[in-house]
C-alpha cells in the first residue's frame, strides 16, 4: 500500500470488561474514528472476547455499562468486529453475542484480518 492510501485503524481488545477502563477507553477511540468517518475495525482476543458475551449487566456492580454502547456500531458504520475463536473456546464461551456484527475467526484468519490495518492499538 502506498503512503497516500487511506489509513485504517484496528483496535485489539485484550481485557475483560468492568474491572478496569481498558474496554471503555478503546470504545471511545472507535466511536471517534467512526464519527470522523475513518475506517476502524475491532478485534477481540484473550479475555477481550468477554466484552462480546450476551446477558452481562454492569449495573449489578455499579458500572455504567459501556457494553450497551456497542449497539451503536451500526450507526457509526463500524461493521468489522472480529472475535478470536480459540480465545472463546479456551474460556468455554458460547458464540452468543450481544451485538450482531461479530465474526468469529480462526487464529490464522484473525491474524490475517488484523494485519490488513496500518495502525493497531491494543487495550
Amino acid at each position, binding site marked *: 500500500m502506498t503512503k497516500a492510501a487511506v489509513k485504517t485503524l484496528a483496535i485489539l481488545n485484550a481485557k475483560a470488561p468492568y474491572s478496569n477502563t481498558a474496554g471503555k477507553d478503546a470504545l471511545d477511540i472507535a466511536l471517534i474514528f467512526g464519527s470522523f468517518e475513518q475506517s476502524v475495525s475491532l478485534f477481540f482476543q484473550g*479475555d477481550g472476547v468477554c466484552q462480546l*458475551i450476551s446477558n452481562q449487566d454492569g449495573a449489578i456492580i455499579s458500572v455504567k455499562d459501556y457494553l450497551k454502547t456497542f449497539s451503536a456500531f451500526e450507526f457509526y458504520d463500524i461493521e468489522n468486529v472480529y472475535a478470536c475463536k480459540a480465545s472463546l473456546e479456551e474460556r468455554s464461551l458460547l458464540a452468543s453475542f450481544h451485538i450482531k456484527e461479530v465474526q468469529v475467526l480462526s487464529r490464522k484468519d484473525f491474524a490475517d484480518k488484523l494485519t490488513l490495518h496500518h495502525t493497531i492499538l491494543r487495550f
Partner: protein
Amino acid sequence: MATLHIVRQSAFSSNDFFQCLQIVTDNDVIVFIDDGCYNLQHSLINSIDTNKNIQLKVIEQHANARAIAINEAVFTKVSMGDLVSLTFENSRVITWQ
C-alpha cells in the same frame, strides 16, 4: 488456622490464581470476586486436590454481572456480607490481585 484467599484476577490473563494455588493449604477458603469470577471456567479448578477440603466460593453478583454460570456442585454463592464474615472466620487474608 485457615487462610481466606480473595482472588480478583482472571487466570486466563495473569498467573495470580496459579500462585494462589501454590500456597493454598488444607481447609483454606477461596472466594472469587471481580474478574476472579472468570476462574470458574478455568482448568486450574480441576487441579485442586479434593482431599484438601478447600472451599470454593464466588460472589454471586460479580459472576452475574459477567454472565458467568455458577456450577453449584463446585462453587458456593456468597454475598459481600459473607465475605466480611469469612474475613473473621479465617485466621488471615491474602488478596490475589
